[in-house]
């Protein structure tokens, strides 16, 4: 189990290298980049914030999108709270580690004690490798004169696609993904950068509530 946690952590360290590189080439300082990985510690939200800033959007559109992407962690917390049974101060520490990978590792176990162990091992290892990777990626690219030469402006969409792919295993999410991409492009010329994302989020919320009523 610890070995599973370690292999996930090492893979995420490589993924964090690309986050560090994308963030500094998007205009964040290395310190801001590292702070995002330490304080936010949820990959998709971090990529979204720096990608929106890098493409000329306001940091607040990026912050709102990051928070919207973070809503799924609240649902993970609901599933984990009965397994982890954390109280008092430990809950504040555990909360920071409530992300895709730790949830997947914890809920795959049969016994609650194994779930707790998997959660903490994966969380701590991931946190270490995620921040180490970010730090190296940020430092390695912060001195680059023109990120376009290395094609780094093409990296954020590839990152989103890689994060998106595992969520598209059914017809409904695939249709929603295609519609969301199209709607975002259609409204892009008419609103400030970053705002198409908020429009898409609003529409999908309406869809979720209407589809429920049916």
């Amino acid at each position, binding site marked *: 189990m610890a070995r599973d946690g370690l292999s996930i952590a090492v893979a995420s360290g490589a993924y964090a290298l690309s986050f560090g590189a994308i963030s500094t080439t998007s*205009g964040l300082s290395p310190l801001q980049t590292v702070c995002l990985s330490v304080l*936010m510690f949820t990959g998709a939200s971090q990529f979204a914030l720096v990608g929106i800033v890098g493409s000329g959007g306001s940091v607040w559109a990026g912050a709102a999108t990051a928070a919207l992407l973070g809503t799924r962690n609240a649902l993970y917390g609901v599933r984990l709270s009965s397994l982890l049974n954390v109280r008092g101060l430990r809950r504040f520490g555990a909360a920071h580690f409530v992300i895709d990978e730790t949830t997947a590792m914890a809920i795959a176990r049969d016994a609650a004690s194994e779930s707790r162990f998997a959660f903490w091992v994966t969380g701590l290892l991931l946190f270490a490798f995620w921040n180490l990777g970010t730090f190296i990626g940020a430092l390695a690219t912060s001195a680059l004169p023109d990120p376009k030469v290395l094609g780094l402006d093409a990296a954020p969409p590839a990152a989103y696609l890689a994060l998106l792919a595992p969520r598209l295993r059914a017809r409904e999410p695939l249709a929603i993904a295609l519609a969301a991409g199209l709607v975002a492009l259609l409204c892009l010329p008419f609103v400030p950068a970053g705002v198409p994302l908020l429009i898409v989020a609003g529409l999908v919320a309406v869809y979720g509530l209407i589809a429920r009523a049916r």
Partner: protein
Amino acid sequence: MIWAGVLVASAACYGLKLAGLSLPARWLQGVGIQRTVPLLPVALLAALTATQTFSSGQHLVLDARAAALGVALIAVLLRAPFIVVIVVAAATAALLRFL
């Protein structure tokens, strides 16, 4: 300004994680929330992919990034690791601009 956004967004993301662990489960188990929340990352990641591939500022454009996304898609379909997807996409864009 970037600092403020970084800190506020980080606090919001932490607050969401903590809320899931702390709030009574039934508050977050409504059908509307359970249906809508998992769709948000799908819609937002797709919108991010589309806008950051096919736009420059407020203009729709078709450039080396579109080809890079196509190569990234092939890598994803071949189940390549995350870092490989990023590297082949960046390398495709860099190569096309160099040619």
